[in-house]
């Protein structure tokens, strides 16, 4: 069989022993099962739209069949269903695996798999599927099981229940923009005749009509489209602060009153076109800035990670209860791939707990009966029984989450560059307005009021207010294209101010996916290696797989008398030789001397212990360069929950050990960040797991490193795709470029203001000057900001 045979389901290499079904090669029986399901329902087109687009999930990783039994209970069903009446129900699921056209096609043809499904719609950007189904033919649980069987595992947690009412604000903004655009376009038509030579011959009736229509158009713009500006201006005034919205609101009100006065007195038809145009442009800016990554979530807390329900063991059998009802002392059952929801004590003999979401460590930890198990781990292997020690709210991880409040938001809002600038701006403008008003009052009193209002009108900081949304909005889009996703544009400014970078170790600067393997003991012969590889082939434990992949060999030997003892090891007879592989206790009978040191797999060969494999996470490629570059501009720290076994290696990277801190608990990490901030430092925390959640939240900017950005990650300000890790310094550098462009944009808008003000103070601000100057300043600032970011990003090569 050729080496590069690819699974027709998922495109992974089939290795040496592909599973063959109908002449098609598959890498594993899981892929082949999905193929058979689709094949039986005439859904083979799935493989034609995008070849090898299927999702590979190891059988070990598939949730146990009872996992979704809670979906049969009405209390959960009613929460999860969007709608249910007369047996017809609607439900929507977030499915992180949706990634291509084939996915859309298959998920929208679900009714071919089950007649109970009436209709299914995919929202690709949100990675969401909306299903209408007939509950008499397929229950919610069966529906979820069906999705799982074709490897599209929906995410069902507290988050998916809470989220439902969130999307309204976007729609509102669209409508506001629509109304502003409508009024702007029409007002322009009515005002246009005024700007042409010969307008003085226009009939008076016509002028009046145009004027009144303009006022009618302005009213919805002022009261609905621009309502947010008045609201925030009022709010900030109440707090005795000046924000950018204050001069905007002031300008809008003056524009409207001035226009109204002119129309009422029959002098002209005012500035309604400028007014509606301003609102339109500013709303466009708000929309551009507000773009979010719909499928990414930056707000996840432990609730979204923990299950909705747990299986409680009672005298009368197992019952499913909601997570909130879990009490300490309860006995619970946790199956393969399920999460331990609260701190508890293990009752079963052994357990293998994967804490990768908590610590970033990809190798499962073995626990024995009576051991304390922290919440947040994922059981791998057989179902285990646990006794709850602390309720969910009191568990270590949850508590950590609850003690973090976000103290930065209020203070930081005030401190943004736009608001700092607008504080001076507002004061200066009001002074100029009063000054020119007073000047004309003593020289030519009839011009005084007009000059005063003209200044407020022309100084309306529309261009100023557009600079930041468009510069930062473009920056965010450039980042997004490169695999660096920001929660919102405000993060850019915080990132710019950062002067200290704190790294987590495991999973952050080390790569959880690739492992460095070393054999400690007498060197193994190639025959021994082949035997080890062959034995490892039969186990699906992650460690076995790692070892299997690390040994080069062409064939697989037959294994007799294969035994897998959960959480301990594997054993088999190959070529007549007995070998055991597994934990130190399993192989040698001795307990591990030090806890939590390196991951080890011990080997017993024939009649003696041959030695052990030592597995270490590899450091991410590019780490050395990144640290060297960042060191020039930032102070670097490292916090890790591990002991100092890696100290020597880390010193090589960081140069010294002053800022390396070992054995740090999640709370220690949080306090360390606090300490740095109290010293006046602006801290960037880079982490990956739930144990960094507190520190990520507390820091000025928290970045999470993720292999798959759509998978679970703790609440943070930005998500960085792990393969872009080495580019982090460039991303940080680029914020400086953005800030320079913002400042240049401010300068441009000030220049426009100087020109406009020179008209205004002389009492010469006619509607036509306003109608030309205001849109031009806005459009040119927008064009400048977007183009210069685009060009800089091109020259930057992230």
């Amino acid at each position, binding site marked *: 069989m050729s080496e590069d045979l690819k699974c027709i389901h998922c495109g992974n290499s089939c290795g040496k022993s592909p599973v063959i079904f109908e002449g098609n090669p598959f890498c594993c029986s899981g892929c082949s099962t999905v193929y058979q399901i689709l094949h039986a329902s005439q859904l083979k087109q799935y493989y034609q739209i995008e070849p090898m687009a299927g999702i590979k999930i190891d059988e070990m990783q598939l949730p146990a069949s009872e996992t979704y039994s809670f979906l049969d209970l009405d209390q959960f069903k009613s929460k999860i269903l969007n709608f249910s009446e007369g047996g017809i129900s609607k439900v929507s699921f977030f499915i992180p695996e949706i990634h291509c056209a084939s996915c859309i096609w298959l998920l929208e043809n679900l009714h071919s798999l089950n007649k109970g499904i009436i209709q299914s719609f995919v929202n690709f950007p949100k990675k969401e599927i909306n299903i209408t189904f007939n509950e008499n033919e397929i229950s919610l649980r069966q529906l979820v099981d069906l999705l799982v069987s074709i490897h599209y595992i929906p995410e069902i947690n507290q988050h998916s229940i809470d989220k439902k009412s969130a999307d309204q604000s976007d729609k509102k903004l*669209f409508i506001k923009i*629509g109304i502003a655009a409508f009024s702007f376009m029409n007002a322009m038509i009515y005002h246009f005749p005024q700007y042409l030579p010969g307008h003085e011959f226009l009939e008076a009736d016509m002028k009046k009509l145009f004027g009144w229509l303009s006022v009618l158009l302005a009213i919805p713009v002022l009261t609905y489209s621009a309502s947010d500006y008045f609201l925030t201006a009022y709010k900030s005034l109440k707090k005795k602060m000046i924000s950018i919205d204050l001069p905007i609101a002031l300008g809008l009100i003056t524009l409207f009153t001035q226009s109204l006065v002119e129309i009422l007195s029959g002098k002209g038809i005012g500035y309604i076109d400028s007014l509606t145009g301003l609102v339109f442009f500013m709303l466009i800016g708000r929309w551009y800035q507000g773009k979010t990554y719909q499928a990414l979530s930056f707000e996840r807390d432990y609730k979204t990670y923990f299950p909705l329900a747990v299986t409680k063991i009672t005298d009368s059998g197992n019952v499913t209860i909601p997570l909130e009802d879990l009490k300490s002392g309860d006995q619970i059952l946790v199956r393969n791939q399920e999460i331990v929801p609260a701190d508890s004590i293990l009752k079963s003999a052994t357990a293998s707990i994967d804490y990768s979401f908590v610590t970033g460590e990809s190798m499962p930890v073995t626990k024995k009966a009576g051991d304390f198990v922290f919440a947040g781990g994922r059981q791998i292997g057989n179902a285990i029984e646990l006794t709850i020690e602390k309720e969910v709210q009191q568990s270590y991880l949850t508590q950590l989450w609850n003690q973090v409040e976000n103290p930065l938001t209020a203070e930081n809002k005030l401190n943004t560059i736009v608001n700092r600038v607008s504080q001076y701006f507002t004061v200066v403008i009001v002074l100029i307005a009063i000054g020119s008003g007073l000047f004309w009052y003593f020289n030519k009193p009839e011009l005084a009021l007009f000059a005063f209002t003209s200044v407020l009108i022309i100084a309306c900081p529309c261009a100023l207010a557009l600079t930041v949304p468009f510069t930062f909005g473009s920056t965010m889009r450039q980042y997004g294209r490169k695999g660096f996703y920001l929660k919102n544009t405000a993060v850019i400014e915080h990132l710019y101010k950062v002067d200290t970078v704190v790294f987590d170790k495991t999973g952050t600067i080390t790569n959880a996916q690739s492992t460095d393997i070393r054999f400690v003991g007498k060197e193994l012969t190639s025959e021994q290696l082949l035997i080890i590889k062959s034995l490892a082939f039969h186990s699906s434990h992650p460690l076995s797989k790692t070892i299997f992949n690390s040994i080069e060999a062409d064939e697989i030997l037959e294994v007799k008398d294969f035994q897998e003892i959960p959480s301990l090891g594997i054993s088999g007879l190959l070529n007549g030789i007995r070998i055991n592989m597994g934990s130190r206790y399993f192989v040698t009978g001795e307990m591990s001397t030090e806890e939590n040191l390196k991951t080890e797999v011990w080997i017993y060969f024939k009649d003696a212990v041959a030695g052990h494999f030592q597995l270490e996470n590899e450091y991410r490629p590019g780490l050395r360069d990144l640290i060297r570059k960042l060191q020039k501009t930032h102070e670097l720290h490292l916090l890790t929950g591990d002991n100092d076994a890696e100290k020597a290696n880390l010193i090589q990277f960081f140069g010294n050990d002053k800022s390396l801190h070992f054995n740090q608990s999640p709370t220690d990490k949080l306090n360390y960040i606090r300490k740095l901030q109290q010293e006046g430092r602006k801290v960037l925390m880079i982490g990956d797991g739930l144990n960094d959640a507190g520190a990520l939240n507390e820091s000025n900017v928290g970045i999470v490193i993720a292999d798959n950005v759509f998978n679970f990650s703790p609440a943070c300000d930005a998500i960085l795709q792990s393969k872009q890790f080495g580019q982090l310094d460039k991303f940080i550098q680029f914020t400086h470029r953005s800030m320079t462009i913002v400042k240049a944009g401010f300068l441009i808008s000030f220049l426009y203001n100087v020109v406009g003000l020179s008209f205004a103070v002389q009492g010469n601000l006619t509607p036509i000057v306003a109608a030309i100057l205001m849109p031009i300043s806005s459009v040119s600032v927008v064009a400048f900001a977007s183009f210069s970011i685009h060009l800089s990003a091109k020259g930057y090569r992230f």
Partner: protein
Amino acid sequence: MSVVFVLVFAAIIMAGAFLIAFIWSVKNGQYEDTYTPSVRMLFEDPEVKIEEETEKGKMETDKP
């Protein structure tokens, strides 16, 4: 020039109709997903056709 009055009102009614259509389309959720429809329209056989064909046992005549 009185015809201009008529035109102005005709214009604003037309524009207003479009505005209402826009607001309706936003509320209807047409801007929630601007990507998937572009992929969906490229899928060839509507699944109804496949079902009919299988019923008649004509699957083999379909494209290879």
